[in-house]
């Protein structure tokens, strides 16, 4: 049943990575801004869970809702305070701003909470195992897959059938034209940030669920994963981001199994070399969006 285990692991990892990537692409699609602060929204949600779990008697489902809301709120606030003022002036300035926001949030936690990792209380469902088709697997893997499917379905409906979703898709294609049609730029961008933060919050629940602890640097790995997955899948397409997430999960598991033990510490280097090669051969990713101006020569 090793194959069954492999499939479930890959699907669960891929689902998580698909959500991570999707959150980054929501903002990138519209603003063409690679948001380095994205990983810190995951961290904010993680710390919200730690604080609510450790200092208040609220039930776990309230904790999770508040955590996701905090991530979305942080995302919105960073847009309001920092990105909104910089983004029209210069692309590089916006990029550096996002990096500065990342450093700011990270060090705020270092300063006001602690540099050390904190244990997060989780409902018992996160540590139970179940048997599916003869494969024993942690319940949280199944939960990850199910949550991702529900979210993807919901987001698809949102993007296809609501005015807001259509406006966001239009803005990702031709922002200026969309504004000429009477869509408010700030509104669309704010919503993109809120959805991005919301997804980061959901990711955080499962991410923290794997280790049951949170530390100031927790956001870095999701950020890198989002980079790799979006690059593989296509920076300008939401579907591409999801596909990239699953491909990355598959790639990661294959490398983990096939690399000899002495090379396993180089796994990240291999991953990034694959990314670089991929970018050089096909800079638009697996699924090509409508906005392609990446390669000069």
């Amino acid at each position: 049943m090793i194959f069954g285990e492999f499939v479930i692991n890959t699907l669960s990892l891929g689902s998580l990575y698909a959500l991570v990537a999707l959150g980054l692409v929501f903002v990138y699609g519209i603003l063409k801004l690679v948001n380095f602060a994205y990983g810190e929204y995951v961290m904010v949600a993680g710390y919200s869970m730690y604080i609510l779990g450790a200092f208040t008697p609220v039930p776990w489902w309230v904790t999770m809702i508040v955590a996701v809301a905090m991530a979305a709120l942080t995302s919105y606030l960073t847009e309001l305070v920092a990105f909104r003022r910089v983004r029209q002036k210069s692309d590089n300035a916006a990029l550096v701003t996002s990096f500065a926001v990342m450093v700011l949030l990270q060090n705020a936690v270092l300063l006001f909470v602690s540099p050390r990792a904190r244990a997060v209380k989780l409902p018992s469902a996160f540590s139970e195992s179940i048997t599916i088709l003869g494969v024993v697997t942690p319940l949280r893997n199944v939960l990850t897959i199910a949550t991702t499917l529900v979210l993807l379905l919901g987001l698809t409906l949102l993007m296809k059938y609501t005015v807001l979703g259509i406006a966001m898709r239009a803005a990702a294609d031709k922002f200026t034209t969309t504004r000429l049609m009477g869509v408010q730029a700030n509104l669309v961008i704010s919503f993109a940030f809120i959805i991005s933060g919301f997804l980061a919050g959901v990711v955080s629940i499962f991410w923290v669920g794997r280790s049951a602890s949170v530390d100031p640097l927790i956001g870095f790995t999701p950020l890198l994963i989002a980079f790799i997955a979006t690059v593989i899948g296509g920076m300008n397409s939401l579907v591409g981001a999801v596909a990239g997430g699953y491909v990355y999960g598959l790639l990661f598991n294959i490398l983990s199994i096939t690399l000899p033990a002495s090379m396993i510490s180089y796994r990240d280097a291999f991953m990034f070399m694959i990314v670089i090669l991929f970018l050089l051969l096909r800079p638009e990713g697996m699924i090509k969006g409508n906005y392609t101006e990446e390669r000069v020569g």
Partner: protein
Amino acid sequence: MSLLQSPLSRMAKHSTAWILAAVLVVGAFVLNMAASGVIVDIYTYFCINLMLVLGLQIFMGNSGILNWTYVGFVGIGAYASSILSTSPAVKEMAVANMYPSLVELQTPIIPALIIGGLVAAAVAAAIAWPLMRLSNAVGVITLFATLIVIHVLMTQWDNVTNGPRTFFGVEYYTTIFIAAGAAAVTLVAAYYFRESSLGLRVRASRDDRFAAMACGVSVVGVRYYTFILSSFVAGLGGGIWAHYITSFSPKSFYMAEAFVLITMLVIGGAGSISGATIGAVIVTVMRESLRQIEGFLNNSGVIDFQVYGLTELTVAILMIIILIWRPEGIVGGQELRLPFVGSKHRSAESADEASS
């Protein structure tokens, strides 16, 4: 007119760089005589950082591409020169399982520094051509990924770098004069590079890629050579840094350092030498004073917990404020020109800057 121009009046026209370089060197002499050891240390470190920022400016400022990989090349230069300059006996002790052929290698310090720069440049030359074809977000992510690859190699290849552990035992060589001299030379070199034919073509490709291509500029080509030059300065600066710090680990060449260098450059204004210099001054003064405050808070017992990250937090806030206020940096991509020298020579260059 050009026939009559003596070298002196040429220098007057490009006075900014020469004046800044002179101030750096004079500052080193004055501080070395008058100031306390701490100030001398801070000034030395400032000069090394300034050299690194200027190297970063050569590529990032002129081509407009955010260069994350830079600090990786600083690391390559630091390791290469330290391995060359450290004596075999020390290396045997410091790096447990280094390749025997590397242990035996030893050169005097100055050739070691230069070779460090050349190694960084060679690595850059080997990998940069395809990277230079990418622009925008994809380019940024690729350079970011390259930094991570370099970092993973530095932490894992313990036959060369001692892995994630500290590489110690490097000889102390970088005095305040060497640091100031290196920074001054880099400053003048970066200035003249910016004004050179290649520098002008890279800047053209930054301002309007398609117009530059239409004028016959090979965008990938000019970026490529600029990247190699920038990496050479990075390697050289890394060597000088290593011979000042004398022990370091791969952590020194990662995100935190990259952020410091990029902050310095962006706060001042990436487009010009004056901007890079002013940014380096402001960030150094801020960081050092905040670090004093942080140290004071931690040691004095005024508050009952340890303060971490105050310096970085404040620098990040300052950075966001400056970017909101002046997205092109404080100087805004132009060279400062003193009002009383060289103002009569309104060359095509300064007209170009005035109109941009």
